[in-house]
């Protein structure tokens, strides 16, 4: 068995990124993701990489845009207010069809909000926080192991589909320590990409990275082509975990830390004889619509558990085409629902259908 080490979630992202060949990090400090930037500041100079604390989040994301254009693995990280600032750059990167990794270790909002964990950037991450028609691949880790694994996966998917990927974590998963098996160290190999801006040496035509298309027919064509790729992502890359769903009569839907809390509640409900299971979306975009639609054929109702006023619940309702009732168990502003609160939600759901 590979060696398990004890690490914080934020540190696991940083070390995993380095091991899968990321040598360029740009960021600006913010709680509760600071350990990630601190780790990069320590490690990158020792391995010939770039760590740069930019003058602002906006600068950092545009530095990411620049490196992404050269075809090298690059990332930034922040927490909610900082990620809001990055939205313009993210839209430009998506509009230029470039891969990169953006990490959001969410905290309570809106505004400057607080520093405690939250999931209230779900809409921003999955519906396009910036302007224009685009999507990010959005992965929702719920353990330190997944922080490492999904960093690796996010880079691979971003490269494969030429689009930015986002890790949508939260303060709890960022700050907690768990044993983790880190990904194998990959050699940093650089293969010239047919679109990368690396200097022509006057030996080839220019490659141009751009998101400006003033001829509407041309821009429309670009968008249609991009959405064909998105359709491939939706077809191939949906990931979710199904927990105790085999005989379930009720289905809890939760991601990240909310799913961890919900598992305790599901176990407690099962101990009381309530047949309940959990579907945990691992990809928030693409959303596991089919899994939920199939669950709707079997269960009597759904409970969406969120660290927000209720955002993912809209996607749950859409996925099941409102064929079953969907209730909400929520805490907001940095608060986390307790297993008891989730259990209460499950019982309410059960009562409502009796």
């Amino acid at each position: 068995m590979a060696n398990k080490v004890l690490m914080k979630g934020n540190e696991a992202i940083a070390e995993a990124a380095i091991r899968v060949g990321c040598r360029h990090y740009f960021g600006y400090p913010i709680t509760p993701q600071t350990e990630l930037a601190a780790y990069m500041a320590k490690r990158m100079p020792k391995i010939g990489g770039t760590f740069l604390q930019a003058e602002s989040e906006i600068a950092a994301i545009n530095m990411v845009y620049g490196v992404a254009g050269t075809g090298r693995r690059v990332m930034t990280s922040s927490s909610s207010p900082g990620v809001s600032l990055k939205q313009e750059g993210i839209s430009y990167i998506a509009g230029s069809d470039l891969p990169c990794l953006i990490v959001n270790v969410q905290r309570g909002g809106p505004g400057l909000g607080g520093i405690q964990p939250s999931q209230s950037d779900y809409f921003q991450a999955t519906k396009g926080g910036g302007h224009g028609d685009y999507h990010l691949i959005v992965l929702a880790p719920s353990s330190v192991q997944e922080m490492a694994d999904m960093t690796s996966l996010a880079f691979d998917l971003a490269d494969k589909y030429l689009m930015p990927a986002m890790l949508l974590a939260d303060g709890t998963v960022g700050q907690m320590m768990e044993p983790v098996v880190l990904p194998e160290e990959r050699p940093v190999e650089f293969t010239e990409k047919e679109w990368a801006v690396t200097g022509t040496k006057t030996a080839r035509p220019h490659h141009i990275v751009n998101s400006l298309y003033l001829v509407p027919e041309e821009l429309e064509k670009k968008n249609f082509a991009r959405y064909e790729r998105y359709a491939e992502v939706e077809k191939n890359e949906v990931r979710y975990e199904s927990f105790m769903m085999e005989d379930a009569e009720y289905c809890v839907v939760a991601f990240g830390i909310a799913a961890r809390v919900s598992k305790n509640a599901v176990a407690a409900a099962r101990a009381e004889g309530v047949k309940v299971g959990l579907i945990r979306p691992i990809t928030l975009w693409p959303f596991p619509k089919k899994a939920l639609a199939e669950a709707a054929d079997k269960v009597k109702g759904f409970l969406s558990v969120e660290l927000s006023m209720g955002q993912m619940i809209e996607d749950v309702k859409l996925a099941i085409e409102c064929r079953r009732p969907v209730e909400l168990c929520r805490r907001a502003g940095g608060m986390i629902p307790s297993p008891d609160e989730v259990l209460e939600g499950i019982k309410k759901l059960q009562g409502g259908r009796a």
Partner: protein
Amino acid sequence: MTTQILIAGFGGQGILFAGKFLANKGLLEGRQLSWLPSYGPEMRGGTANCSVVLSDQPIGSPIVTKPDVLIAMNLPSLDKYESAVVPGGVIFVDSALIERKVRRNDVKAYYIPATKLAQQNGIPTLANMIMLGKVMRECDFVSYEGIEDAVRTVVSAKHADLFDVNLRAINIGREIE
């Protein structure tokens, strides 16, 4: 078996460090575990607490809301978390800093003047490890065997000189009847 441990006290008492020690001990024993600190403004002088879950099964929530074991290193922590301990649970109280007794009678309570003992033994910053020594004497969710390895892991290479004193602090706690 799953054990939920909550360690709480002032910032600066080594609350998170004590949790890290238990987490590393669990890791060395091949257990499943999670360690979750409180973070934010309270770290700078106010209350600090740390959730540690040790289990033989995958761990659900890393947030300890109903501790099996509470280690209270100041009065606000005992006031806040005493009622949350599960019936049959255990509370360890630093009686050098907390004058009152545990009010519940459905939990087991141990009173250790850890802060005083630490000062008397010339290791004033290690009341946390004295508490853990007593915890390991009374509870079996981690084993005393292999304690040196765990101390070595958690005392970073930079502070290797602190290995002996940490081990001594644990043993002081462990010898308290």
